[in-house]
């Protein structure tokens, strides 16, 4: 349902926007992500829209709508993919707006009405990047409402107070909804002082997530669920081999298939539009697409490419002189190599888009982490202006980095234009597995030398990885030179034990013949697996307890102190034991990712020869916690996703095809594999919120490998352990 035009007439939005555009004081400039300053505005609109949100499309840069029913609808520039961003941001906004949580509703901002993210949703940055600007916006909005109420009630602002969506004072009161309904002109004031954390009512509360009810009741909130009247289905033929270039297709047989409306043959792809999903897929199988490939790849070829020493190297971290220590003739250098496989995203909702191309406007509904870039791509392909392309993002059935490039939107739009109808098109599961933007395989080499006292004198970490950030449309080529190396590939690869006198980390870049990209936590999982396994190996050589050995190598710098605190707390909470007992053993590991340190203890056993993770203790310090329940949920999910990768997951290349192509064959953790106990302890040693969604994926791999070593004496340096 869209905005009720009649009821809206009392509110002269046009006037407000006019004022907003000409007065400099009413533009609120904010910046977040890695984008330059982005200008935002606040608009109050007198009426609401009900779910599924379609909303007004003529308000530029809309953040908040106040409804007559005294609800505030927040148009969120970040997408909700399960990470709880909607809930956290709602709590932050409600805090400064002085409203109850039941009074705020969060919807995905449409590109038509405003504040779409100029970059992406990902990298565990959503809450951190909006922490200051969102509070400023909300506080400004509250101040606007207070002032409007003052004039409506004929009272001085100073005597009024805003609470639970009501402005009151001197025995009089008005709801926000009533204030907005009676208002014709707005002035945007200076941003008032933000609330004292001691007075927070919402921030820090373990509220249920705002989308809980919809998700439990099965509401149609995902891209896959979007519909438009007259919608038909499109199916695109996707390559099943590596490095395939489209070279045309024979479409004659497909054209005659039942239900087919049109076979759409383009320079770079071929697809078919039919009345139903089943008819489209059946017709697609009759298209004989031609592909050219240059070389036939096998897993062994890929493994041979991912080797430290090959490709271009960049030193990403350096302290002291590792070479001077490690290259001494007499030095007894300890070296170990670690490997990780190609990983698939395997999110359950396949990629797909509903596109409707009308004469001078395109409407797209899809699950994407990159609204802005998708819009650009579609506009460019159709020869339209960006403003003519409206993207209504939907809830994502999992993101994990898989939707940081969604060119399928462009294909759906091309097919819609060809038939003049709304076309929904999405990947089959096989196509997902074979056309994923994979987590690149890695090879890590660690070299260390211990002093006679058993302290690390020098430590070197070499990382060979396929691209993560490089090659992504999110990172223009020019920026590669500025950044100098692939931050994504070596994420988690820096040495965090700054008390080591000489350390160095080196990233070796390899370009693989298939797409590799972001995968939740990027290189953190594999790089921490290597470093933290090696720390245990060094501790053993030094004859020291793994926990105290780690602590010995931390300094009193703020970052090291935070890391030390999670390490100590995790060891204490888990009752960490260095030796196996009763057929069980514990493993320890820690990492710092994007300023958030995390330490974990995994407790494992072997049952009928199979590895079983019984308990994981996780101590995370993400700084200020907005919603402790959601942070815990992220830790639990990350831990089990990590277990899945460490125990089972791997893709292989056989005769140029990526395999497996289906769940099950691509083995993942199921309910039976999840630890029955996960204890999450949150420390808050920082006043601002930091990353949450990815950091807890760091330690889990090494924690398990270290536990297995204590249990069996076998040191695993390659995952998956059970693969």
């Amino acid at each position, binding site marked *: 349902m869209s905005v009720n035009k009649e009821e809206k007439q009392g509110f002269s939005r046009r006037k407000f926007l006019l004022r907003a555009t000409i007065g400099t004081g009413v533009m609120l400039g904010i910046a977040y992500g890695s984008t330059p300053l982005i200008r935002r505005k606040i608009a109050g609109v007198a009426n609401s829209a009900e779910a599924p949100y379609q909303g007004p499309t003529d308000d530029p840069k809309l953040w908040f709508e106040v409804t007559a029913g005294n609800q505030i609808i927040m148009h969120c520039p970040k997408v909700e993919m399960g990470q709880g961003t909607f809930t956290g941001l709602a709590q932050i906004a409600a805090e400064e707006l002085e409203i109850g949580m039941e009074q705020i509703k969060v919807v995905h901002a449409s590109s038509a009405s405003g504040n779409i993210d100029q970059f992406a949703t990902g990298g565990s940055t959503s809450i951190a990047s909006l922490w200051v600007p969102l509070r400023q916006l909300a506080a400004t909005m509250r101040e606007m409402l207070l002032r409007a109420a003052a004039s409506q009630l004929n009272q001085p602002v100073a005597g009024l107070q805003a609470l639970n969506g009501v402005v009151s004072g001197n025995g009089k009161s008005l709801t926000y909804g009533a204030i907005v309904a009676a208002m014709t002109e707005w002035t945007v004031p200076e941003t008032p002082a933000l609330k004292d954390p001691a007075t927070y009512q919402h921030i820090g509360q373990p509220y*249920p997530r705002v989308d809980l*009810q919809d998700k439990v009741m099965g509401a149609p909130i*995902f891209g896959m669920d979007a519909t438009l009247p007259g919608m038909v289905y499109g199916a695109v033929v996707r390559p099943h081999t590596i490095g395939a270039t489209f070279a045309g297709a024979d479409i004659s047989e497909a054209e005659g298939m039942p239900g087919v409306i049109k076979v759409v043959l383009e320079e770079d792809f071929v697809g078919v539009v039919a009345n139903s999903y089943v008819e489209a897929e059946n017709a697609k199988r009759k298209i004989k697409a031609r592909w050219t490939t240059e070389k036939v790849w096998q897993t062994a070829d890929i493994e041979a490419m991912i080797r430290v020493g090959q490709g271009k190297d960049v030193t990403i971290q350096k302290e002291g002189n590792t070479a001077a220590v490690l290259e001494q003739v007499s030095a007894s250098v300890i070296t170990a190599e670690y490997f990780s496989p190609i990983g698939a995203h395997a999110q359950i909702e396949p990629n797909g888009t509903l596109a409707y191309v009308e004469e001078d406007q395109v409407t797209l509904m899809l699950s994407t982490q990159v609204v802005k870039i998708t819009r650009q791509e579609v506009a460019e392909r159709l020869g339209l202006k960006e403003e003519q392309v409206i993207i209504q993002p939907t809830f994502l059935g999992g993101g994990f980095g898989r939707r940081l490039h969604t060119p399928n939107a462009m294909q759906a739009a091309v097919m819609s234009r060809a038939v003049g109808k709304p076309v929904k098109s999405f990947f089959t599961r096989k196509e997902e597995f074979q056309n994923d933007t994979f987590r690149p395989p890695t090879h890590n080499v660690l070299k260390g030398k211990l002093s006679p006292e058993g302290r690390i004198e020098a430590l070197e970490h070499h990382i060979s990885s396929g691209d993560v950030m490089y090659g992504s449309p999110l990172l223009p080529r020019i920026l590669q030179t500025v950044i100098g190396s692939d931050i994504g590939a070596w994420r988690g690869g820096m040495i965090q034990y700054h008390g080591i006198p000489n350390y160095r980390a080196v990233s070796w870049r390899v370009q693989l013949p298939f797409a590799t990209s972001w995968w939740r936590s990027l290189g953190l999982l594999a790089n921490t697996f290597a470093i933290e396994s090696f720390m245990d190996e060094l501790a053993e050589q030094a004859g020291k307890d793994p926990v105290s050995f780690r602590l010995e190598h931390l300094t009193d710098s703020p970052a090291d102190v935070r890391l030390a605190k999670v390490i100590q707390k995790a060891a204490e909470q888990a009752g960490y034991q260095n030796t196996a007992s009763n057929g069980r053993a514990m493993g320890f590991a820690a990492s710092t990712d994007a300023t958030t340190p995390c330490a974990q203890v995994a407790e494992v056993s072997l049952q009928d020869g199979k590895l079983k993770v019984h308990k994981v203790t996780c101590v995370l310090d993400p700084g200020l916690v907005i919603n402790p329940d959601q942070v815990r949920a992220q830790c639990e999910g990350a831990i089990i996703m990590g277990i899945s990768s460490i125990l089972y997951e791997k893709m292989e290349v056989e005769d140029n095809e990526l395999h497996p192509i289906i769940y099950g064959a691509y083995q993942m953790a199921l309910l039976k594999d999840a630890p029955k106990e996960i204890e999450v302890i949150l420390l808050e040693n920082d006043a601002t919120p930091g990353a949450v969604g990815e950091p807890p994926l760091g330690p889990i791999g090494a924690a398990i490998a270290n536990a297995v070593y204590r249990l069996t004496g076998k040191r695993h340096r390659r995952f998956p352990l059970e693969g």
Partner: protein
Amino acid sequence: MPTTFILNGRPVTVQADPNSPLLWAIRDELNLKGTKFGCGKAACGACTLHVDGKAVRSCSYAVKFAEGKSITTIEGLSQEGKIHPVQQAWMEEIVPQCGYCQPGFMMATAAMLAEIPDPTDEDIDRNIVNVCRCATYYRMRKAIHRAAEISNTPS
């Protein structure tokens, strides 16, 4: 050839090809989107619904087999304004993350509880074999035990 069955308590007739998957008839012809597509190969469980009370992966179940049967989807799990114990437990434990797999898990759980009212952990491990990429399994196990508890408590 049309196919007639009971959907969430009401008789319906669909025109879909009798050999096509029931999933698409439910999603597109009957416009109930709570039953999800994840793989189309009976491998993930996102499309789980009930056929005469039994959990069925509807992406791999032909429309013709539904003839005369009683089908329940997530939209019909709670009846007469009373929330189903499984959905109530899911709310209490705040299980969903992205939420996409959750209807399938709740339907699989509800069908299991109808047969095994007080499941052990082993029962759960054996019967609930859907895939959740957000890996919400830890809370799911708790929610399944809680749902059993709610069901077994006389109201």
